[in-house]
């Protein structure tokens, strides 16, 4: 009995866990978020390591093997020009994930810089910068994408740039709101009082203290970018053969829908759904974790 009483008053039991640990614990308890993370890891492994195990020629067409139904040799069949569909899914995944991740991160970086500068500067600078954001949001991103893609035939890098440049508007609004609440905090005021520069205030204090917002935003941006890539490719304006992405595969396969060639559509459609849902689930999980962390 006495032993139990002693253990209740051990000094280390009084030390509160760090906010980071609390957030991690909270995140790990969120089963949906964990499932999302698992799906993303599997998708990355499948797309990037898969071709090391499943060797297929994704450069040269083979018309003698076109439109084959799933079999042991081609578990997901072949497409209209003879590409193995399983290997195609891997190649397409590389493009979709690469573009989605890169464009999502690029959009968040641009949005973070724009929003933090606007929020910190205030006054007419903020007014002008945020009206630009308002104007940008008023134009549908898909419309801009279609116009750009119709003018220039984009490659992977081009798509990343284009998607990043049309997707930064929402993160910038988030970051501006976060900055507005942080710029009046004591540590920023103290920094300014001792002669710290505006740039230092933004780079070393406001942005690091907004990391929760940024991390949550980036997950949703990645999901949105993957969908945008799928949209653009579905409309026939994405990367060109022999490159492909999941949206492009869906687009190519759709013409075969009525011929019963489900393997050209269902796998690509499912992976898009799974990966986009997974990123959204991770974003939800992170948001919940940061909220708890903030309360602690």
């Amino acid at each position: 009995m006495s032993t139990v009483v002693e253990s209740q008053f051990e000094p280390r039991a009084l030390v509160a866990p760090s906010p980071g640990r609390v957030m991690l614990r909270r995140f790990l308890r969120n089963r949906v978020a964990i499932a999302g993370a698992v799906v993303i890891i599997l998708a990355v492994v499948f797309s990037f390591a898969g071709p090391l195990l499943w060797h297929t020629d994704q450069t040269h067409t083979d018309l003698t093997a076109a439109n084959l139904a799933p079999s042991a040799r081609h578990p997901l069949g072949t497409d209209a020009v003879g590409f193995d569909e399983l290997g195609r899914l891997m190649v397409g995944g590389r493009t979709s994930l690469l573009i989605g991740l890169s464009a999502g991160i690029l959009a968040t970086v641009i949005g973070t810089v724009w929003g933090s500068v606007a929020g910190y500067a205030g006054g007419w600078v903020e007014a002008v910068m945020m009206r630009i954001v308002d104007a940008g949001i008023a134009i549908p991103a898909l419309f801009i994408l279609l116009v750009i893609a119709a003018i220039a035939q984009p490659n992977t890098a081009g798509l990343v740039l284009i998607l990043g440049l049309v997707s930064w508007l929402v993160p910038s609004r988030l970051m501006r709101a976060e900055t507005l609440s942080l710029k009046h905090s004591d540590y920023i005021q103290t920094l300014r009082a001792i002669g710290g520069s505006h740039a230092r205030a933004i780079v070393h204090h406001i942005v690091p203290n907004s990391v929760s917002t940024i991390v949550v935003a980036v997950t949703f941006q990645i999901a949105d970018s993957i969908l945008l890539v799928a949209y653009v490719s579905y409309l026939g304006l994405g990367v060109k053969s022999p490159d492909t992405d999941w949206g492009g595969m869906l687009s190519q396969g759709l013409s075969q829908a009525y011929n019963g060639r489900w393997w050209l559509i269902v796998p690509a459609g499912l992976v898009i759904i799974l990966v986009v849902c997974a990123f959204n689930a991770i974003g939800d999980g992170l948001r919940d974790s940061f909220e708890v962390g903030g309360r602690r």
Partner: protein
Amino acid sequence: MTARLGPVARGRAVGLAATAEAALIALTACTSGSGPSTSGGSDHADTVSYALPAGVVPNWILPISTPGHTNSNNYSIQNLLWEPLIAYNGSSGSGKIQFDPKASVASSYTFSPDGTSVTITLNDMKWSDGEPVTSRDVEFWFNLVTANKTKWARYRPGAMPDDVSSFTTVDDHTFTLTFDKVYNQNWLLSDNQLNEITPLPYHAWAKTSADATVDTSADLDRTTAGAQAIFSYLNEQAMDVSSYSSNPLWKVVDGPYTLSQFTTTGQVTFVKNAHYDGKDPASIGTVKLLPFTTVDAEENAVRAKEVDYGYIAPTDVSQKSTFTRLGYQIEPWKGWAITYIPYNFNNPTLGAAFKQLYVRQAVQRSIDQKNIAGVIWNGAATPTYGPIPQGTPNDFISSTQKTNPYPYDPSAAKKLLTSHGWSIGSDGIAACAQPGTADDQCGAGVAAGTTLSMTLVSQSGSTVTDNMMSTIKSSLAKAGIGLTVKDVPANEVLAQTPKCTPDDAACSWQLSFFGTAGSWYFPAYPTGDQLFYSGGPTNFGSYADSQVDSLIEQSSSSTSNEPIQQYSAALTKQLPVIWLPNPDYQVSAVSTGLKGVTQDPLSRFHPQRWSW
């Protein structure tokens, strides 16, 4: 925190909605395409809807076409409004291309015994405003074309109107054309000569501005300056597509239909010409032409029974029974056509390489026509190895073209390049390592380091075309030839790939494809003088060969088929373009209730003959 995350949450909602959309698309694959057994298309007995080819938008109304406005749908539309003098088409349904007296303004034509002139008599017809159609209206067309021949898309030096030395009016309904020498009469009648003439309403069009009044006694068109001024005005009016249905000029017609709608997006509606008194009256009151950006979109419209006369993708021929249950007849529409990719011989970067026959041979040996036709086109295309259509038996084709001197063999293609001074780089693309004109060098004008990496401007809107281009790109890569494909709508392909000289900014194009439904539909006599004659109006790549020119000239004047067969053999060997399988014009889906439909090998449609 919640308020701050609002926009993200909204973005997520959009994302989830889009995800659901993707799910729906995926689930579409699991559904069946069959539906109730009813007649397809319109429910209105006096209306018929016709689907235009994917990506094709009609863009020219004046029956004197200018470059960039030569798609066959423009001609079909023009012929519904203004009947040609001598209609030469395949509307009989027999597959033969022949004189169609019903659709012609001419009632008869008679060649002089020595063959140097033809006298033509007109039917007794009236324009829609009540004025008679006369010889003067034919002369008006002739004068306009003569004074503006270099602007006419059909003009080739030596042919119409150069081959006509005089136009003599006998009376209001009879005239005589005298030629500068004796020509093959089949060629005169059917190869963009007499069959190109369209009587135009002189009394309504012979003016130079909208406000001007036509003075029929002034004979403005009989002077070169006057004819040029009139043509300039008409051309300017024809450029304004959005005004076609309202412009008074285009209301004066002698064809079976008049125009009631013509949008810049390609939606065209005709109504029956109440004043028509020719021999080819319309049966159905309203004809609607519907544009589509993709074959898939059009096929979905067929499935929804939104068109009476449409088409399906060649890959979906296996679903014939499904469309039959929907109330359609599925019939391939064979065209009297060839399909090809022109080289731009004047391109500053690769023009010199294209001029080397061994380079063209290497490219041609990389085209697997048999499998492209069989697998990608699902049999709805015919391998074609030269300038004469091979889908229909004919007397013009040579044995050389039939037997294909350049069968598919990427290894042989690669060897052709490496044996002529090209080396394959680490990127797999051949580069000229040994410039010069010796047998084992790259050839005249090909600079050291020139890479054989080509760019193709290709017609968008067809998955089958996309797959064909993927296959060609793949097989070219095996030979060490790079290909980048840039997709644009069909009209844009024609606009971006004009005839040019090396100094022109517009000469940056290298290869051009506009043949999803066939690149070129011949008149009955397939000399190809428009395509391959030096300076020919649709010789986009500026191919020039004096021997070929001579054979074309001989074929237009000789009564024998030997010159045209020699021409067939010469171009099969010379490869002025990349020969491709010629697809059927389309795999038609025609509502079972629609009668009188014939699929003209010239790709023209004749809705005045249709009825419910």
